[in-house]
């Protein structure tokens, strides 16, 4: 097949705003978010669903954006890290991550925050075991996880 494949219209909602974008069928949601919509807060890591750096929330559930074909996101609501808070008005999770020193190199942080948000929406007071399970799809190579877990546990303190 030729390289110049036809693009197709994709409509979805990203961080509350309707978005229309032309995409190739083989593109993933991750590629569309980063390269078409320039929402580069969602990170590209392993691209096979192991590291969780690309975690976004789709219709209320945490998913790996690298494992969703862009066209499967048709009519869905997507939340990315850009929708979580602003520099002036941080989300409580973001504030807690800073307070607890849960950010080192920062590459895993957006995905970690989105997993934490999805967890807290279903379970506002998770135990440590539930937090560990909730972020088990997100790899962090710096922190050893302890401070991340504390940051999620103490988000409302």
């Amino acid at each position: 097949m030729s390289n110049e494949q036809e693009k197709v219209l994709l409509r979805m909602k990203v961080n509350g705003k309707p978005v229309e974008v032309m995409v190739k069928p083989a593109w993933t949601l991750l590629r569309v978010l980063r390269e078409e919509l320039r929402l580069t807060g969602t990170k590209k890591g392993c691209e096979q669903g192991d590291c969780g750096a690309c975690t976004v929330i789709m219709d209320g559930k945490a998913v790996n954006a690298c494992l969703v074909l862009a066209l499967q996101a048709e009519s869905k609501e997507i939340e990315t890290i850009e929708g979580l808070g602003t520099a002036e008005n941080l989300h409580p999770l973001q504030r807690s991550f800073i307070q607890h020193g849960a950010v080192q190199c920062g590459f895993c942080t957006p995905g970690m925050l989105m997993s934490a948000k999805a967890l807290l929406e279903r379970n506002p007071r998770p135990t440590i075991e539930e937090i560990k399970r909730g972020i088990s799809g997100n790899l962090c190579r710096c922190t050893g996880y302890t401070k991340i877990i504390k940051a999620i546990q103490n988000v409302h303190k």
Partner: protein
Amino acid sequence: MLHFQFFNARSIEEAINFLAEEVEQCRIIAGGTDLIPALRKEDIHPDFVMNILEIDQLKGITEMDHAVRIGPTTTFTEMIESDILFRFFPSIVQAASSVGGPQVRNRGTIGGNIANASPAADVLPAVLAYDGELELQSKVSGKRIVRLSEAIEGPYKTRFLPDEMLTGIIMKKPEPGTRGLFEKLGRRNAMARARMNLTILLRLNEKEEVSEVRIVPGAVMPVARRVRGTEEMLLGKKSEPSLIEAASEVLAKEMVEVTGIRWSTEYKVPVLKNMFKRMMWQLLR
């Protein structure tokens, strides 16, 4: 990544019509947790990818009089949260809980786990233990029911016809008193592919004798299947330590008969035996 066209099927009829036309070059996508990595590695080169996640008829878990029907696009998360599955098929819930991390469990589906036929699948062996049946549909041959145990030909290979689609997984409710357990061994706790998993269903009669037993090791053989020799050894007998010990030897022998002696056999034999014994004690407690 390859180039393909995308088709969003809205009903079973639309999907099987599309398969009938594009049968050679079409791959079905649901959660995509296996298919998208395969596309990216260019292990497969479809001309068409058909999405079935928007087909309502393929979703959900339904209780019937004597059986439960699971729609193939039911995700692992939905299985874990299902009261019906928890009540009748606890091993399925345990198997679904062992898959990946939350992101993968939110996307991956029971139909994908079965139709992909990975030797390392987790839910597939648990469905085998419950003797699950598959409903397959195609435009040309209509609807048919096949047993899962007869539907898998080899690693990543099913006996589905090329134009057939999996449209339901049906499991008979087990006899009251049946206990079930699933355990998995991976190289790490989270996000691990199974190196080995084991499903055991067990029922005792009033004399504490084994009246029914089903044992399915997964990920240790090219195709997961019940180990009949081990099951027969236990049937009708009182489950005493010496019997469980002897059954674990037969179980290891049945595995080695299929796999032959490999570099990993020295490790897998004692681990499988111990996993089996520990689970049997847990079920008998």
